[in-house]
């Protein structure tokens, strides 16, 4: 508890720099990342991150010193150049985007490595620490870095806030954006520039490889919680800010632990939890709703079968044994037991010594499903000219999802029919 308090109070200047720096960096790259991910250019950030290296080396070669502003400028230029080269390759040849990304990434990085090693072997005393650019170290943040981070973060956030509507349009509907006269090309360029800026600044604290995680992971996670861009941006930024602070806290309690990888580790875990657990889009919730639908279908099929069994005699509430039910229709026996119990709890069927029988409520429900099935068959044969021996399968799946409104429209359309294509009676609604 003491450690946490010591961390939160931010007495130590170094803790202050690392924490604020990490939060600013993480949040601003997450905001920009939302747009890159939505435009399906998530991995471009990876290429930019690698393309920064030759810029750093060239800046050093040209000026002979490690001035952070000049190095930033150098890395910005080559990072930006990488995106331009990628665009040229994809638009002027048959090379696909992912190949262009991989190519630019490895070649730019190769140039960087060659320059870096050549500088290192040249015996220049000044060069030591140049390679720190590659792997980044949040723990080494100093006051001056914080000002750079703060300024860049502010610039990124401000641009996104001011041009939110425009960016939203070009991310979702480029053609529409073009028709209403937006300068799409220039906006795309600006968005790219912002991405490059975020990457260039971020690399110093998390390193080349992990920088793409700062762009992609929070955006991909936030995508699962909402369909609205505004909410997505805010969720991504919040997740990142929290993980940024938590990463700084981890390396505060265990100084050997690197901040950047911990930020990414926490972000990834958060993202994977989102993929699994998010309401409505998460894996678990989709699995549960699929199971719910399957069970509902099984229950409706049981009711239908009991109804069919009663149809020849008109004795709908007679009871039938499981063998009789299965003889009429193959149903998954093991799951059927629990569904029969659910049905009896719902008051649709009752059990007696001979087997199961429909209750009046059950008969009504079964009638509804059978009605929908036959209406749909009729619709297919009458309106879509499907042969009557081909319509059963389709009706079998649609009967479970037709709403009362659609049912009404179908009836009107078919002029209140009484028999289906197989000349069986369509049960009428009993209200």
């Amino acid at each position, binding site marked *: 508890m003491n450690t946490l308090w010591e961390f939160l109070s931010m007495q130590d200047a170094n803790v202050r720099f690392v924490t604020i720096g990490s939060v600013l960096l993480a949040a601003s790259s997450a905001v920009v990342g939302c747009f890159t991910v939505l435009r399906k250019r998530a991995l471009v950030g990876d290429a930019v991150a690698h393309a920064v290296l030759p810029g750093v080396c060239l800046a050093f070669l040209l000026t002979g010193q490690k001035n952070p502003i000049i190095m930033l400028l150098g890395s910005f230029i080559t990072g930006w150049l990488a995106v331009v080269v990628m665009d040229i390759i994809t638009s002027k040849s048959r090379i696909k985007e992912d190949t262009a990304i991989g190519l630019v990434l490895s070649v730019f990085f*190769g140039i960087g*490595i*060659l320059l870096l090693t050549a500088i290192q072997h*040249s015996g220049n005393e000044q060069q030591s620490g140049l*390679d720190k650019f590659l792997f980044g170290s949040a723990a080494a943040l100093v006051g001056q870095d914080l000002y750079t981070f703060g300024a860049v973060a502010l610039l990124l956030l401000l641009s996104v806030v001011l041009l939110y509507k425009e960016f939203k349009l070009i991310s979702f509907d480029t053609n529409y954006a073009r028709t209403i006269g937006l300068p799409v090309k220039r906006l795309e360029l600006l968005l790219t520039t912002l991405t490059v800026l975020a990457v260039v600044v971020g690399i110093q604290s998390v390193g080349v490889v992990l920088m793409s995680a700062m762009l992609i992971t929070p955006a991909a996670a936030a995508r699962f919680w909402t369909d609205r861009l505004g909410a997505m941006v805010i969720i991504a930024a919040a997740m990142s800010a929290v993980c940024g602070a938590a990463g700084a806290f981890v390396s505060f309690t265990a100084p050997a632990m*690197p901040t950047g990888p911990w930020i990414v580790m926490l972000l990834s875990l958060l993202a994977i939890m989102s993929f699994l657990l998010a309401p409505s889009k998460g894996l678990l919730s989709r699995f549960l709703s699929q199971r719910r639908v399957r069970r509902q279908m099984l229950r409706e099929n049981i009711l239908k079968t009991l109804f069919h069994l009663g149809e020849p005699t008109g004795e709908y509430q007679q009871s039938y044994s499981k063998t009789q039910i299965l003889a009429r229709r193959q149903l998954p026996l093991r799951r059927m037991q629990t569904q029969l119990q659910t049905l009896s709890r719902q008051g649709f069927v009752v059990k007696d010594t001979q087997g199961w029988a429909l209750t009046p409520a059950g008969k009504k429900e079964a009638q509804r499903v059978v009605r929908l099935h036959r209406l749909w068959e009729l619709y297919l044969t009458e309106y879509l000219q499907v042969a009557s021996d081909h319509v059963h399968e389709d009706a079998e799946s649609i009967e479970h999802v037709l709403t009362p409104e659609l049912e009404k429209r179908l009836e009107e359309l078919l002029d209140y029919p009484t028999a289906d294509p197989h000349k069986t009676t369509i049960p009428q609604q009993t209200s």
Partner: protein
Amino acid sequence: MMNLDAFWIIVTGSLVAMCCSLLGCFLILRRMAMVGDAISHAVLPGIVLAFLFSGTREVWSMLLGAATLGVACTFLIEFLHKKARVQSDASIGVTFTWLFALGIILISVYAGKVDLDQDCVLYGEIAYVPLDVWFTESGQSLGPRTVWLMSGVFLLILTFVTLFYRQLYLTSFDPAFAVAIGVSTSVWYYLLMGAVSLTTVAAFESVGAILVVAFLVGPPATAYLLTDDLKKMLLISSGLGVVASFLGFYLALWLDGSVAGAISVIIGLEFLLAFVLSPSHGLISRNRKLSKVASA
């Protein structure tokens, strides 16, 4: 000035180049070029864990650890994309950065016990290949260990691609037809990815991740601009890789820099040449065709 060391370095580069070219052609045709990049980063925790468990830098345990993680990485990418419905490029990005972060954290936790740092992982030094020589019991030198290892991997990959050329071809170009005639796309996806993992891992220590990515993408992309025939593409890209290894070595010697970096630079130059000059798909012939259409 071709001494024995230079010879071994170029041979190693060429072997890696040929393995990567054979697999890379299929990767870029399937639009999965970035999966190679992902695997080459995701194997890091596997290597660290193998070190921790075996306690040595023994090749076999390392290969096993890294290959496991490489395949796990492709499973995770597929799972996130297909089952959890994460957009495909995002699922690649999330997976490999997560595994890489895990690797770095493991290195920091066991910093004292693992003789391994990120630098050597990202741009392993091919120039050290001749130093690690394999001696027999009687003390006779058999040449560098890496050359033996890469030769074995190359034979394996070559056999794989020649024997199953038809399946790889079908599942890359016409997955729907492949499924229709009973060739499982997912089996061949995982076999291909397994081969990519194996190559990445084997080449890792000697040439580094970045050169593996360069070889996987560069020569195949260049060859793709030069031919429409997959068999020719495989041959051309292998050839380009060998040439790049040769020229790259001398460029590095001249600049006194990293051999891996120099080879990547040559790969970039090769692509640039094909991009501009290719008789069928180059910039110049493309423009000429366009202007012909315009004037007609």
